[in-house]
């Protein structure tokens, strides 16, 4: 064994190298304050290990990036843990970098002759920020997409070269495949490559100049091995433990719904370590002092000046009071960043609109997973295509956009936003159900805001009928009333109402007779047979999918409101919505949204 080691050593000088690594001299002995550089190297090593394996499962293109990350997160054995480690170690690196920088500035380790080494450190800081920024886009989810859009827009405001630079970074004038391929090449190739070179230079120069020992020495001079190595190891372990804790607690890294530029994403925020910059751009003084140039100043000039001062610190440190200036400057920047971050978090916490958007984003993300699992995988068209067929996702969006200026859904616009204005048309939550119909037939409710309050039908025949005639009819025969409601509700055939239908059939049959006899509904409405004299919407198939789609398509059709229609647009006839879109709204209102029902191909049994 000894012979073998000697043989190798004579040809490589390995032992001398190892000796140099382990027996670096540390005046004053090992100290905890020296661990930061090692923890950062450790983090970088973890990022390479986890990153390479993630790379093996990642596919950078606009219709496979999110999908491949979904697979890593939800299908791959241990994928969520791997992804979580990569995600949280990246965050840890930003924290550790700040601590390392602080220690270097406080200990004066940036001064001559260590200027160049310090600059390599500044370069490493920028490379780390670059890796965070490029890594953030790769899942191609709504959050990463939104953040990248902002970041790349900011590049575009750089004078002269900005637009060209933006185009090169984005890989064209619009975001797409090449945005991902370029970001991925930067994230997995260029930046780590530069980082390895910079770390090598950083460590080599560190060794050349030796450690900047903190005075006064507490202990006699010692070697790197074993005390400092042990301390460094313990620090790395602590970092790892924190990261593993966060990974397990969050079950890996978050994955929002896939990027869809046609959908607003009101929960858009950068990663927390960029929040201070984000909040900085919101500060009033930028627009007040610099007017239209506010963004250029806030996003490019001021951060550039800060980086410039940071890079110039070795020179500043040589001046009288320079070191104190450096300390003070760094302190102000860090405290400012912390305050801005806190301000940002607090203003978001106090913003109900943002909170609703965060919940909506989570709902979309969860729904996406449900849909994929119900489908047994992602169709070749991609995950967005799957989401766009989903009534539970698209229905409320379309409702909010096209219906909610008059109608409400459970008091809100379908997406949870409550308007201060009174609705001018009925609330459609539960439309077609017995509860909804009972409310309509309640003399105290029919003219309130939930039903006809905002329409001209408030004083119409139906309202008068419910208020004047119906109470007596109901008092005379409550059972007939109940069966009549059952019969009309049976027309809707809501999925929620299908259970136990057979047992209710006799009651429904009886109710159908009451509709035309006891209650005289057929005086105005058609019911289960053609009626040319009908003046009110047909009750045949009332609340069913076909009935609702037809009504929304054209309420002015003779089967519905005809000429008496009150302001409701003919959505299909006017070209406002397609039949597919109307169907999605209807399915959502009817709560006919079970993924299994519409995702499984017809004729395939499982």
């Amino acid at each position: 064994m000894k012979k073998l080691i000697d043989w190798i050593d004579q040809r490589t000088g390995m032992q001398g190298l190892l000796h140099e690594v382990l027996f670096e001299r540390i005046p004053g002995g090992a100290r905890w304050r020296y661990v930061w550089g090692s923890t950062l190297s450790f983090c970088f090593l973890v990022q390479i290990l986890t990153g390479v394996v993630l790379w093996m499962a990642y596919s950078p293109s606009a219709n496979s990036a999110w999908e491949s990350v979904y697979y890593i997160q939800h299908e791959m054995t241990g994928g969520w843990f791997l992804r979580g480690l990569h995600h949280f170690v990246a965050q840890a690196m930003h924290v550790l970098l700040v601590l390392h920088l602080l220690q270097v500035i406080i200990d004066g380790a940036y001064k001559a002759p260590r200027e160049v080494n310090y600059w390599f450190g500044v370069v490493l800081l920028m490379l780390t920020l670059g890796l965070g920024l490029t890594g953030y886009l790769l899942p191609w989810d709504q959050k990463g997409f939104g953040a990248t859009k902002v970041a790349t827009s900011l590049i575009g405001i750089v004078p002269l070269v900005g637009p060209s630079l933006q185009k090169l970074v984005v890989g064209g004038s619009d975001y797409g495949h090449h945005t991902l391929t370029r970001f991925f090449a930067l994230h997995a190739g260029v930046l780590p490559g530069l980082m390895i070179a910079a770390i090598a230079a950083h460590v080599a120069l560190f060794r050349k100049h030796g450690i900047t020992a903190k005075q006064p020495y507490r202990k006699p001079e010692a070697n790197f091995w074993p005390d400092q190595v042990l301390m460094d190891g313990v620090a790395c372990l602590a970092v790892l433990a924190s990261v593993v804790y966060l990974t397990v607690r969050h079950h890996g890294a978050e994955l929002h719904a896939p990027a869809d530029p046609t959908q607003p994403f009101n929960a858009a925020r950068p990663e927390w370590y960029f929040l201070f910059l984000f909040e900085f751009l919101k500060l009033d003084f930028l627009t007040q002092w610099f007017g239209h140039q506010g963004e250029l100043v806030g996003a490019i000039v001021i951060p550039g000046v800060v980086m410039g001062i940071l890079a110039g610190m070795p020179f500043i440190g040589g001046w009288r009071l320079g070191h104190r200036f450096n300390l003070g400057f760094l302190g102000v920047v860090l405290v400012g960043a912390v305050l801005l971050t806190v301000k940002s978090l607090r203003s978001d916490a106090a913003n109900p609109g943002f909170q609703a958007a965060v919940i909506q984003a989570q709902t979309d993300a969860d729904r996406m997973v449900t849909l994929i699992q119900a489908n047994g995988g992602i169709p070749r068209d991609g995950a967005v295509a799957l989401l766009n067929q989903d009534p539970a996702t698209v229905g409320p969006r379309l409702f909010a956009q096209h219906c909610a200026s008059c109608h409400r859904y459970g008091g809100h616009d379908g997406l949870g936003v409550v308007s201060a204005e009174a609705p001018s048309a009925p609330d459609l939550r539960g439309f077609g159900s017995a509860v909804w119909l009972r409310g309509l037939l309640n003399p105290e409710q029919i003219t309130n805001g939930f039903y006809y309050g905002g329409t001209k039908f408030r004083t119409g025949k139906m309202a008068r009928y419910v208020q004047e005639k119906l109470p007596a009819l109901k008092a005379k025969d409550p059972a007939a009333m109940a069966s009549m409601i059952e019969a009309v509700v049976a027309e809707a055939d809501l999925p929620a109402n299908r259970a136990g239908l057979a047992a209710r059939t006799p009651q429904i049959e009886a109710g159908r007779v009451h509709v035309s006899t006891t209650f005289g509904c057929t005086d105005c409405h058609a019911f289960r047979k053609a009626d040319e004299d009908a003046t009110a919407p047909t009750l045949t198939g009332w609340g069913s999918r076909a009935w609702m789609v037809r009504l929304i398509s054209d309420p002015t059709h003779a089967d519905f409101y005809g000429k008496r229609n009150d302001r409701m647009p003919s959505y299909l006839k006017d070209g406002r919505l397609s039949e597919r879109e109307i169907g999605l709204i209807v399915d959502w209102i009817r709560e006919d949204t079970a993924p299994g029902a519409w995702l499984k191909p017809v004729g395939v049994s499982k």
Partner: protein
Amino acid sequence: MDATQDSGAQPRRRFLAEAAAGAVGACCVGVPLASGLVAWLDPLSKASGSGDWIQVASLSSVPTDGTPVRVTVVTGKSDAWTRDAAVPVGVVYLRRTAPAQVVALHSVCPHAGCFVDYQTDRRAFFCPCHDSTFAVDGSINDPRSPSPRPMDTLTVEVRGEAVWLRFQNFRSGIPAKVALT
């Protein structure tokens, strides 16, 4: 004898060798570097291909009371190797200003490029990122709004019952409205 010969010829010989080594080295590094650079610069030579007339909505779908309606612009689009006959390329807000006159506002915030949302209850546009706000006609309605310019308008034409527009994206963060090419 040899030594004297060398001393006379050496400076020139040395210079030639150095120049040749430099040239060979530059060639070896330069050719692959240049070939990479040319391909990397490819996006600069590609035009966005936007600005064509696209039919986006029917006139009757734009409310007559001036309330903006959000419309997804769908047209043919190439994305590197993918070509789609009809994909969403952007979102605009259409607003009726006269019986047969429609204004289109781009949904991308001129500040930093986020998606501007129309808030029905406030009757105003609001960007959730840096809190830029715009009036219903797209103008800046609050001096504290960080946006450097009003929402971008697009060229619209009402042809009979159909609303057509020329869809473009614009650079954000600058006071001037400059189309991305």
